[in-house]
């Protein structure tokens, strides 16, 4: 039983922040609640954001795909804007979270604001250059998702509210793929790797390698990315891809726990990164490869 004194239902993002600040005592934002009810935090009130207009997924006039913080994982997994963006990488990540009834209520915002190192959506979003939108009572700020996580269960939010994320139009045609290793399909991931890249005129444009469950926060392997950006695809031998995997493995900072050893996780980062890169480079060029690199 969660010993809340009050359940406040916000009608807009600004009202949600105001309700959070009103006190007395400590509050928590709630959307789906699937994590909060597992380990109810000590607090006096909850601020429900399900009626704050943050449940939508939309494509902006600029071609960005905006996903509201209260969009459910099922909505994300099946929305045509998301399934059609960068090979459906984010939709697939959402489809692998929990089980069908969990995905009916669990949300993007909950997955990110919990800020677990193993957040299921984080590697896909990092690989796609997602931008976070954070609202205050009467202002809004945006920042790259890399800057959102501060540590396990810690974000930059304070008492502000995550309104949603945007996937930039430039990445819509990127090739992308991800792998996650788990003990059972529903379990928390042991290792997550997501790779996204663009190819134009036989050369790599953008390269993004994002890792989860192998550091205090979901992270990008930027040294490995830098080894590959601008390189001619024809020059990328299996050894070069294996090297990129080893660099990514050297960048992460995993721990030993009851699910897996740090050494195993680190080794798997190298293996999965290499395999994902090789798979994406072997894909036949698509019509939109050219446009996406522009």
């Amino acid at each position, binding site marked *: 039983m969660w010993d809340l004194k009050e359940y406040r239902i916000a009608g807009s993002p600004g009202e949600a922040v105001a309700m959070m600040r009103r006190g007395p005592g400590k509050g928590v934002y709630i959307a789906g609640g699937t994590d909060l009810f597992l380990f109810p935090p000590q607090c006096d009130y909850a601020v429900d954001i399900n009626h704050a207009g943050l449940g939508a997924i939309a494509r902006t006039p600029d071609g960005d795909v905006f996903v509201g913080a209260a969009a459910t994982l099922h909505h994300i997994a099946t929305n045509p804007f998301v399934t059609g963006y960068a090979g459906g990488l984010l939709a697939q990540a959402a489809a692998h979270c929990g089980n069908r*009834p969990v995905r009916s209520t669990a949300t993007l915002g909950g997955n990110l604001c919990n800020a677990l190192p193993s957040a299921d959506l984080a590697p896909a979003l990092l690989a796609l250059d997602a931008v976070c939108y954070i609202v205050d009572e009467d202002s809004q700020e945006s920042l790259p998702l890399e800057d959102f996580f501060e540590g396990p269960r810690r974000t930059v939010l304070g008492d502000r509210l995550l309104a949603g994320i945007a996937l930039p139009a430039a990445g819509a045609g990127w090739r992308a793929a991800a792998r996650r290793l788990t003990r059972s399909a529903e379990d928390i991931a042991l290792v997550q790797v997501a790779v996204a890249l663009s190819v134009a005129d036989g050369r790599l444009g953008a390269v993004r390698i994002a890792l989860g469950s192998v550091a205090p926060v979901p992270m990008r392997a930027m040294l490995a990315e830098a080894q590959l950006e601008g390189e001619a695809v024809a020059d990328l031998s299996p050894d070069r891809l294996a090297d990129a995997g080893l660099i990514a493995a050297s960048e992460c900072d995993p721990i030993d726990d009851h699910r897996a050893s740090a050494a195993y996780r680190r080794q798997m980062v190298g293996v999965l990164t290499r395999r994902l890169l090789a798979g994406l480079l072997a894909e036949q060029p698509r019509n939109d490869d050219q446009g996406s690199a522009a």
Partner: protein
Amino acid sequence: MRMDLTLNGRPAQWEAAPGATLLAVLRDEGLVAAKRGCETGDCGACTVLLDGQPVNSCVVAAARAHGHRVTTLEGLADDPLMRRLQDALVEHAGVQCGYCSPGMLVSLYHLLRACRAEGTRPGDHAIREALSGNLCRCTGYVKPVAAAAAVAAALAGIPATGTEAR
């Protein structure tokens, strides 16, 4: 706190603690088809429909129901599709201890109702995906899946009436 909702097709008012789960309130109201299993959103014994979507009522706030539609197995008792599913589960010996059955039925009902509306017939993969949130320690899933497949094969002939069809 006070909540106004549509419960099994009828207007209802609840008075519940702010931190109560949907499952706790349903069972206090005497609607006990949804079971207390894991209470961590893993086992699916507490599955109900919230605005027509299957949810684990053990990890959903009761307050979420305010202004929304909640449908439990009790509310589907007269629905022809649900009756067919119940009969099929019995005929195929897809029920043993029975604790998971109400949750399985709600999950399968959700799948098959959507398939009937789309005019599609779910294969075993779609049935297994629909049951991905329902743990069963007795049947091994083979018989419940066979029961659902049998109903799916006759789906077009099952009339769409009852609470959720409204």
